[in-house]
């Protein structure tokens, strides 16, 4: 394979694409399910988990009052058109959160520095992943895992407690999901599969040779290598399975979708505009759900510490600087302003999902989207900005604002969503206090 011959995609995306292609099962280059299999259930549930790093200005977040008609706060005002399709949950907390390490316990309740465990989205992927081209998707505003630093870029963890790397380039993701494999690629594909397979065999043999000569402690380290090889082999097998099915072609015409060919990734160049980016990313999620390319997604919308503020927001400082507000009214005001912009994008996302027909309702009816943060305001463990949206058609009963029992672990929300996806959790997920009855009606 010669890199210069791969013409249509830019080099950066091509290279990155191939990297991710192997990296994540969902980024395989493959075919789609044009028609949903006859055996598929009448309603296909989907779910997404979203991380907004560094908390929000919680002084202007919670609705006024409780119940369906609660008055929306400044930050949540953009969600007004979707009343009845979301619920703000006050009372959630993260025992191990409340600081910039808060992304670590976000989905698993396990503190930074501790051995991690499988995250809810991966439990769902184990059940639903067999039926979709990509078992799950990891998206983020920052690429990779960021593991070890506070700026964690992913909230997905596999069975070994290893973080799953996220992708941040809309064009790369779009191509992986929808770009048809051209003739040349198809011709090369068989060779590529064979080569990858035999390399995996050979390095596994190497690993066994090495393993035999290592002491016990070193062997434990090498276990990660064996696990990874096993996963990569599974991915390869999956790719081969899907190779002869064409990818779905989403219908983008006349629906105000952005141009994925011209998409700019956050670390790209001066042409990056967050507003455009946010919409491209949310639309990708909608498209991936619509085409049943995957049923579960995690998305780090905003990381800890860095970023979160872009020139077009018209505020004077970075997000992290603003959260260290020192009770300065101007900082708090600008913080709320930025949070409101993020909620405008969220509303755009809900609009999109609501506009797509799915079975007997809309895509939003069959999709549960939970977002929160690793902290509330001022590094607090409670006062989290927790909201569940969508899923009315899956039996979620929305009521705008619900006060949960104080210190209800965030894991309870994940358990609620996970069980609604049809996953049976024996006992409780992490420190969850069980499913949240208020949401189940």
């Amino acid at each position, binding site marked *: *394979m*010669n*890199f210069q011959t791969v013409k249509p995609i830019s*080099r*950066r995306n091509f*290279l990155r694409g*191939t*990297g*991710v292609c*192997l*990296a*994540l099962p969902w980024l395989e280059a493959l075919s789609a399910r044009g028609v949903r299999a006859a055996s598929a259930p009448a309603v296909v549930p989907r779910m997404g988990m979203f991380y907004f790093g560094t908390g929000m200005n919680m002084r202007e977040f919670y609705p006024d009052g409780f119940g369906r008609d609660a008055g929306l706060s400044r930050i949540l005002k953009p969600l007004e058109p979707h009343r009845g399709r979301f619920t703000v949950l006050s009372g959630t907390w993260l025992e191990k959160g409340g600081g910039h390490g808060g992304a670590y316990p976000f989905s698993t309740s396990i503190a930074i520095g*501790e*051995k991690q465990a499988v995250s809810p989205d991966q439990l769902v992927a184990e059940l639903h992943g067999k039926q979709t081209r990509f078992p799950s998707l990891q998206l983020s505003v920052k*690429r990779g*895992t*960021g*593991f*070890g*630093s506070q700026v964690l870029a992913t909230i997905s963890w*596999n069975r*070994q407690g*290893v973080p799953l*790397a996220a992708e941040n380039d809309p064009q790369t993701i779009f191509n992986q999901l929808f770009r048809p494999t051209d003739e040349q690629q198809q011709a090369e594909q068989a*060779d590529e599969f*064979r*080569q*990858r397979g*035999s*390399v995996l*065999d*050979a*390095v596994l043999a*190497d*690993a066994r040779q*090495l393993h035999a*000569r*290592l002491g*016990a*402690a*070193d*062997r434990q*380290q090498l276990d*990660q*290598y064996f696990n*990874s*090889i096993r*996963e*990569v082999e599974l991915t390869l097998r999956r790719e081969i399975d899907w190779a002869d099915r064409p990818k779905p072609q989403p219908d983008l015409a006349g629906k105000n979708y952005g141009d994925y060919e011209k998409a700019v990734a956050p670390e790209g160049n001066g*042409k990056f505009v967050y507003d455009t980016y946010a919409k491209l990313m949310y639309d990708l999620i909608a498209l991936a759900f619509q085409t049943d390319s995957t049923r579960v997604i995690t998305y780090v919308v905003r990381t800890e510490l860095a970023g979160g503020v872009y020139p077009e927001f018209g505020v*004077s*400082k970075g997000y*992290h*600087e603003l959260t*260290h507000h020192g*009770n*300065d009214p101007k900082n708090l005001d600008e913080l709320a302003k930025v949070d409101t912009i993020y909620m405008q994008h969220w509303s755009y996302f809900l609009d999109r999902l609501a506009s797509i027909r799915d079975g007997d309702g809309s895509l939003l009816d069959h999709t549960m989207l939970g977002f929160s943060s690793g902290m509330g305001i*001022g590094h*607090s*463990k409670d006062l989290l900005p927790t909201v569940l949206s969508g899923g009315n058609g899956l039996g979620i009963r929305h009521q705008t604002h619900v006060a949960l029992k104080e210190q209800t672990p965030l894991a309870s929300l994940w358990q609620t969503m996970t069980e609604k996806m049809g996953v049976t959790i024996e006992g409780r997920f992490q420190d969850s206090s069980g499913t949240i009855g208020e949401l189940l009606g």
Partner: protein
Amino acid sequence: MSAIRETRTNGPAIQLALTGLIVAVLTVVATRGDAFELDVASVLQEYCVRCHGPQKAEGKLRLDQLKADFSVRDNAATWIEVRNMINLGEMPPDGEEPLPVELIESTSGWIAAGLRAAEQQQLSTGGRVLLRRMNRYEYTYTVADLLSMKFPTGESPLDVLPPDGTAAGFDKVSTALLLDPSLMSQYYTVARRIAERAIVDGPPAFPTEKMRLEFEDIAESGAISYLVTRLGMRPVPGGLELIEGNTRSFGMLRYPGRRDNNVAPVNGFYRFTVRAGGWPGADGQVPRIQLSHSHPDDSMKSIMEVDVTAPWDKPAEYSVIVPRDTLGNELSVRIVNEVSLYMGQRPGENFMQRNNAAGDENDFAEALRLAGRKVAEGWGGDRSTPDPDKLDVTRFPRVFLDYLEVEGPLYDQWPPASHTGILFGGEDAKTDLAYAREVFARFLPRAWRRPVDDKELKPILAVVRQELESGESFHEAIRVGLATALTSPKFLYLAEPAVVTPSDDNAVAATRPLTEFELASRLSYFLWSSMPDDELFRLAARGTLSRREELTSQVDRMLADPKSDRFVEGFARQWLRTDTFLAFTPDKYLYKEYDDKLADAVVREPLEFFREVLQEDLSVLNFIDSDFLVINDRLARHYGIAGVTGDEFRRVPLPADSPRGGLLAMAGVHQAGSDGIRTKPISRAVYVREVLFDNPPDPPPPNAGEIEPNVQGERLTVRERLMQHQQIQACAACHRSLDPYGLALENFNVIGLWRDRQDGEDFRGDKTPPIDASGRLPNGSDFRNFDEFRQALRQQEDRFRRSLARKMWVYALGRPVEPSDDPMLSQAVEEMKSGKDSLRSLIKSLVNSKAFVTK
């Protein structure tokens, strides 16, 4: 999840199962030999157990049953809660007898120490160096050295491999260098790409070409219509004269056969040459020119900036080789020290000033009228009226541009060195499996950094055979084999396998001396972040590397090699935390002088300083205080130091009246300890204690808060507001041993400028309160100002030496420091001292220590 609640049972943990606190604490005394515990026991007994004991157990908490084993997560969590409650002054509650400050301090300190010990134990490897994978820098450097490869922009493994985890402050520690499936796949992808570059078929797709633009040709083109309207540009015989503005390439420069305006048809390295001469201005200033590329990525725009010192009539070539990708467009040459030859406004008029005045008076109609008049009369911009005072252009720096030449893509050789090195038999060699065996028998020992036996060749040869049998070309088969070698754990991991096969999984093998090859790798990954070179391999094969005098002389050789820059980048960057310097951006309205060049310079300063100390064998105590600086022109301007031109860093003697000198006077440190509008003394204090003394303070209680802005009408300094906070007794306990380290730096503002009076936030005018940087260190030494503070730190130079030795220990061994390392660290400190406190003497001591040379 039960796994996470599991009691950890490894190591000599403080495993206690006790029914009463007193017993618990006494036992801890026996185990840890610490004098505090007795006090802690009696404190809790006296102040807490009445409510949190068998009688009441308020909040479901029974401190009489709380065990002192911090390695159990739930115990540790409860202890943290206890510490937070007493630190916050919330316990004992109102109405109960408060806990005296000394007792808060000792109890809280005891808990913090226990937590730290438990954390260390969790990280502990029992003093052994564990198997670890390379971090992404090491991977990239290793490939570069192994295959003599250079990576153009966007094609380095660093652009694909994600950032690595860190532990104990460095990306060298095995417990943080995890491997997950996505990384595994990326290793494979990267290895395939490397193989593509390493072995080539036929001539390059884009041969090296020379492209030249003669500037006089612009006059022949349509662009002349543009040129003749400009005062600052003039076609002259043989070229173009530039006084103001810039000239583009006007579509006259492109790679042959291309339709776009790009000189780079493929990612690679290109040589850019400008032939130019100049007239200095009346003040002797020579023209400075900048060659730039129109490019969507801002960081790719600049190609070179250079002073044209060659005279007008004897132009010289100014050249640079830089990586380019295919996204660039037109090139342009600009004169940097240009003179504006046009008038900004009508003589006698000052639109800006009048406009501002109108704005202040809310007279918007007048402001609009002024702005409109300025446009209508054609003032401002480069189409404005020539300035009559500047008609004699001979007074200004002028540059004569002869030609601009681009050569590329450049290849060191073709086929590349990797190709000829691996396929040693040349193009005529017989391409069969026997040759492939020879190829890999030669290649693998270098790739895997040790001798490789026949059995180990088998898996790769199986891959090569399969490719050949599937009809792939020999080159392609070798490429797949190469990708295998680079994806193998034998390449990715720094492995030190047992010499004999371990028979029992649980047996703790006795320590053994490293093999010669293992030692070569430890040494080269320590100082070069890469594989050993031929010399190290040769010594290892001969079996003489492990000799003390040989190790020592290899250190000297390796530090003299340019590859030792990677040690600066790897160690100093992480030790001095330069990655964190720009976490907060200074407010652009308060600190108008702050710009990108300064941001870049403040991050580089400590690294360049370290390089100087390392290479010139200066004392490490210079980090505490120095009589020199290592700065460039931008920093010199920032620090008010005259006579420094050019953006390269160099050593400059410290002027007698300058407050600079040492790490703590560097602007990057001050910026890191600021939030953009005000200083954060606590954060600076933490930096001083952790970086200079490896002595992290106890963590703050939750919601510890920030320094708040002044209430309307008050003008308290940051220090005064911090002191208010300290009046809460519970806070004072910790803060008195912390704050002085940060308050001592209060004379340095958010961007590291010296200030005698409070600035930032909304402090303006002349009557701002003065800065007080005095204080008392925990050891009792008083200081009145920053200079005395530095002197007080000099009194603790042994603490600093030891802290530095510990950091480098972690970096060199890839594991945390263990109590058993103490004697070796003491020796390292002594040897450094007797070696004039040079980094070299510390490094030599470390590589000769028992921990470094044994597994």
